[in-house]
């Protein structure tokens, strides 16, 4: 178990964060840049000192400002994977790994390093310098080096963000292998909900230095506590003013014009959250009579592939995103500039606390 309680001032930001991660579990700290998530990692690793705090891993106290305990970074047994992997450029791949195995007798280091590189599928690159490796290969060398130090906790700082989309799936599998092999508490820092959902067991959303919601990716997606969390999960978030109707539905006058109905309860200034895959598009301006209660007219502003689906952005007085198949795009001519009606159900409309 890794436990951290950290308070401190970082520029404008008041950090006040508590987290605990059981063995062999991964907690993602999800938030926008400037929310304090990387500072939390640095404080756990001992690279930044909090004003007040306590960090313990297993039975070892790494930091306790109340009792004056403060272990140097190199004595905290944590494997830190940096965003840019921070490999030594003047050393071959195997020497980079061996650097973390200095406790081994010199004669055994080469073999042990190559074995670890093999485990991540880059054993054949043992003699290559980092500059000659691709982003995905560098990531694997960095993961091998991390495991080589036999860490009792893993700290991952946006470990996939330096990679292009085509290598991300493979790199994700390599990371999951590392997590499985190390079987230690892991904290992953990311601004990407999909990355958090793919790697972590649980996600904690950090806003202005504080954790505002913690749960599985599914829970966050289905029941975000605020517009801030809903937005981070990739949902469409629209602000408005809610009024409870006598029939039990809630009617929201949207800031960007138009109204929406929700089966959730809400009153006053709120935000609504809808997932892109709940939104249906109809070309033209006329609405076919359907049971969907919510319709906004607008124009397609962009079409972007996500996996094997398409995200169609619609400007409808407020920005919307609908997820459709390529087949639907082709048949309905959903191209930028096209007039469309976006429709979704009142039962798919969540009411969440409004943002600032």
């Amino acid at each position, binding site marked *: 178990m890794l436990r951290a309680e950290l308070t401190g001032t970082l520029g404008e930001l008041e950090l006040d964060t508590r987290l605990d991660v059981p063995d062999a579990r991964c907690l993602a700290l999800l938030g926008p840049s400037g929310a304090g998530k990387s500072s939390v990692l640095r404080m756990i690793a001992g690279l930044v000192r909090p004003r007040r705090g306590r960090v313990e891993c297993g039975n070892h106290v790494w930091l306790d400002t109340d009792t004056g305990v403060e272990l140097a970074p190199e004595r905290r047994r944590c494997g830190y994977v940096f965003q840019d992997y921070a490999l030594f450029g003047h050393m071959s791949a195997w020497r980079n790994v061996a650097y973390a195995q200095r406790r081994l007798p010199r004669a055994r280091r080469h073999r042990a390093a190559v074995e670890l590189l093999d485990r991540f599928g880059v054993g054949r690159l043992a003699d290559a310098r980092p500059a000659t490796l691709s982003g995905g290969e560098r990531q694997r060398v960095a993961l091998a080096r991390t495991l080589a130090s036999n860490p009792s906790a893993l700290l991952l700082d946006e470990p996939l963000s330096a990679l292009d989309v085509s290598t991300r799936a493979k790199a994700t599998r390599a990371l999951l292998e590392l997590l499985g092999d190390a079987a230690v508490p892991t904290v992953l820092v990311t601004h990407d909900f999909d990355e958090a959902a793919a790697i972590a067991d649980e996600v904690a959303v950090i806003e202005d230095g504080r954790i505002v919601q913690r749960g599985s990716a599914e829970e966050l997606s289905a029941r975000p506590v605020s517009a801030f969390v809903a937005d981070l999960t990739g949902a469409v978030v629209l602000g408005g003013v809610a009024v409870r109707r006598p*029939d*039990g*539905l809630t009617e929201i006058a949207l800031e960007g014009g138009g109204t929406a*109905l929700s*089966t959730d309860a809400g009153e006053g200034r709120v935000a609504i959250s809808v997932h892109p*895959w*709940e939104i*249906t*598009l*109809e*070309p*033209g301006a006329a609405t*076919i*009579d*359907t*049971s*969907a*209660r919510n319709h906004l007219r607008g124009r397609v502003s962009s079409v972007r592939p996500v996996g094997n*689906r398409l995200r169609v952005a619609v400007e409808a007085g407020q920005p919307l995103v*609908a*997820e*459709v*198949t390529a*087949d*639907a*795009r082709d048949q*309905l001519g*959903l191209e930028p500039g096209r007039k469309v009606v976006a429709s979704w*159900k*009142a*039962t798919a409309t969540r009411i969440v606390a409004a943002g600032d």
Partner: protein
Amino acid sequence: MKLSTRNQIKATVTSVSQGEAIANVEMDAGGQRLVASITVEAARELGLEAGREVTALIKASDVMVAVE
């Protein structure tokens, strides 16, 4: 029907059971039973009652596939 919804299934309403705000609409699509949870308001506006011919709309991303 020009909708991005990929599954458009012709069906006949067999029953409508109304709660406070939500109505469950049961349909028969060539022997297959389908259920929709919609608002009571929508059920009333569309005049849904047993015997009414309708189209059930299901987005491709909402369909799960199972094998026995």
